């Protein structure tokens, strides 16, 4: 489930980023954070499915909570990056 939630977050962020012509909120960074995790989990799920078998997706309350936690953590990291880059950018412009 965390794979689906992160993939959805990646798709939604990409749509949001594409709709804004300028990358002023550095949404591309958030897109790449989510896409990086989605791609890695895709490989993890495919390899596990091929070698161990069983269900491709784990749908449980625990996996859903993990998905939400991961998306929130990615969002916090992106906010921190954006704040630090903006703070660094202001004195450089002056």
């Amino acid at each position, binding site marked *: 489930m965390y794979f689906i939630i992160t993939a959805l977050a990646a798709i939604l962020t990409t749509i949001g980023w594409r709709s804004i012509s300028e990358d002023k909120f550095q949404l591309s960074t958030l897109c790449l954070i989510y896409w*990086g*995790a989605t791609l*890695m989990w895709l490989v993890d799920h495919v390899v596990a499915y091929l070698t161990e078998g069983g269900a491709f997706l784990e749908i449980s309350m625990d996996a859903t909570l993990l998905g939400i936690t991961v998306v929130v953590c990615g969002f916090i*990291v992106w906010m921190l990056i954006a704040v630090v880059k903006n703070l660094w950018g202001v004195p450089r412009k002056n």
Partner: protein
Amino acid sequence: MGCFVVPMAEAIVVSIVKKVVKKKKENTASVGAEDVTFLDGESKELNQTKIDWEQKLSWLNQLLWGGVFLLAIEHIWHGEVVLWPPFLTAMNNPSEIPIMLHEMATIGTSMAVFVTLVWVVMVYVAENKLKQTLHKKCERN
């Protein structure tokens, strides 16, 4: 168990390479600033049709570090990683170490290779799109 360690190693290497490229670019800009003004129109256009390596490496860096960070959270959630040494819980049990190393070699390497392949495609598409946009602009002029 510790599959994200392999993409993390790649991310560290990419970060170092990115810093080196940035320094080289800054040095070239300061030394060759006068030469750039003498470039003819065609050469300038040729430079504009390519995305610089710093930008390309920045995309790969963000993909890798983003993935590594979120995977680390998943591993902490599942109790496979702790915040104190030896960090990977499999290291506490000698019988689990070969399984962990096998997982790193198979899944970890596949993750790193797959992310890098996606990045290569991404760079190819972005450069082609940039070229097309410039061609359209030239045709209009």
